[in-house]
């Protein structure tokens, strides 16, 4: 049993990170991340690790955007006509079909597709975590607001952590498995 040292509570609420039911959702809007973005490098490193544990990567480019990371066989892709990924798409069907109920979100920038979709997913009962070091922002103030709002009222849209904090939970989980 392993959870992430996230804020404001240890994620996921059900007490165990389960890679087979966890999706890594990557949102891109506008121009996406600038090349050389540290946030993109963090996400690439995290996704390499997440794929090995059996997590599913879901690419969610906006209408005029491209996926910022490579799309590999076994990944899911859902192009969004709106900012919210559940609006006008088959995302819920894709997630249900893949058995994904726990979602890790990365956004370029965070305030648009990622934030809108985290709200929608949370309302639908998905257990969400925002990967705060895997996001770019339109402004420092709105990034801080987005990250803070998630954590109000005991985690009103879910939880927030860095990719390293999630990896730490995966490490402790797999070590337990080999004992």
């Amino acid at each position, binding site marked *: 049993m392993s959870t992430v040292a996230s804020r404001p509570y240890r994620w996921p609420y059900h007490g165990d990170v389960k890679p087979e039911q966890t999706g890594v959702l990557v949102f891109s809007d506008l121009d996406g991340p600038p090349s050389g973005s540290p946030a993109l490098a963090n996400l690439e490193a995290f996704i390499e690790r997440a794929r090995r544990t059996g997590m599913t990567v879901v690419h969610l480019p906006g209408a005029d955007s491209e996926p910022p990371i490579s799309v590999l066989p076994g990944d899911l892709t859902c192009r969004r006509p709106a900012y919210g990924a559940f*609006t006008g798409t088959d995302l819920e069907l894709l997630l249900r079909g893949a058995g994904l109920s726990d979602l890790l979100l990365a956004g370029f920038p965070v305030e648009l597709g990622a934030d*809108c979709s985290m*709200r*929608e997913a949370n*309302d639908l*009962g998905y257990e969400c975590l925002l990967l705060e070091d895997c996001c770019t922002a339109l402004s420092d*103030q709105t990034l801080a*607001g987005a990250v803070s*709002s998630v954590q109000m009222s005991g985690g009103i849209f879910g939880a927030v952590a860095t990719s390293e904090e999630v990896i730490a939970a995966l490490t402790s989980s797999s070590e337990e498995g080999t004992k």
Partner: protein
Amino acid sequence: MTTQVRAEPYDWPFDGAIVPERTALVLVDWQHDFCGPGGYVDKMGYDLNLTRAGVEPTRKVLDLCRQIKGMTILHTREGHKPDLSDCPPNKLWRSKQIGAGIGDMGPCGRILVRGEPGWEIIPELAPLPGEPVIDKPTKGAFGATDIDLVLRNRGITHLIFTGITTDVCVHTIMREANDRGYECLLLRDCTGATDYGNYLAAVKIVTMQNGVFGAVADSPDLIEALSSLSRVASV
């Protein structure tokens, strides 16, 4: 005659003038649980002055909009069925972790449960007969309700937002509405959040990218724009 509102980042609405028959004033979750003593937000330890800040300006806007011929007043209300069958398990778990469990008994009845005193809209902004009220088990309003049908049936395409809390329910509904093509305006002084910094950030993001989710105005500017519209005959 202009009935556009001075707003940021563009004068609202984008398509020229407020048409009352196509416009709804939306009052989001003005419930005791979110701004009254002993309610859900109070029980979590937040400052009620922040969530109550928009009550009086909203009352003035509401009074005026009720006099304008053809304009719809629409209320939303967050709450769950008494058996909590519409409450996701993680939402219930988190509320209990913070000591304000949904469905638990509090000073204002069962927290966030439909029909309880805490769930009621505060008297200052309470709905009148004939004004649609959308009950939602969610932060947003489009995911699990008939709001879209109600708005479409009335031919409403433009939404003016007031309510609480700015960064949570108001923002979620405004984002959903914007994604569906509604032309949205947020009244900056008619809303509040549990954290003032989050309120400011939520207002700011609306205006970025040339109005990514719509526009933001102060209620006196809306009142000025509406003053040229015809009133209900009996008033």
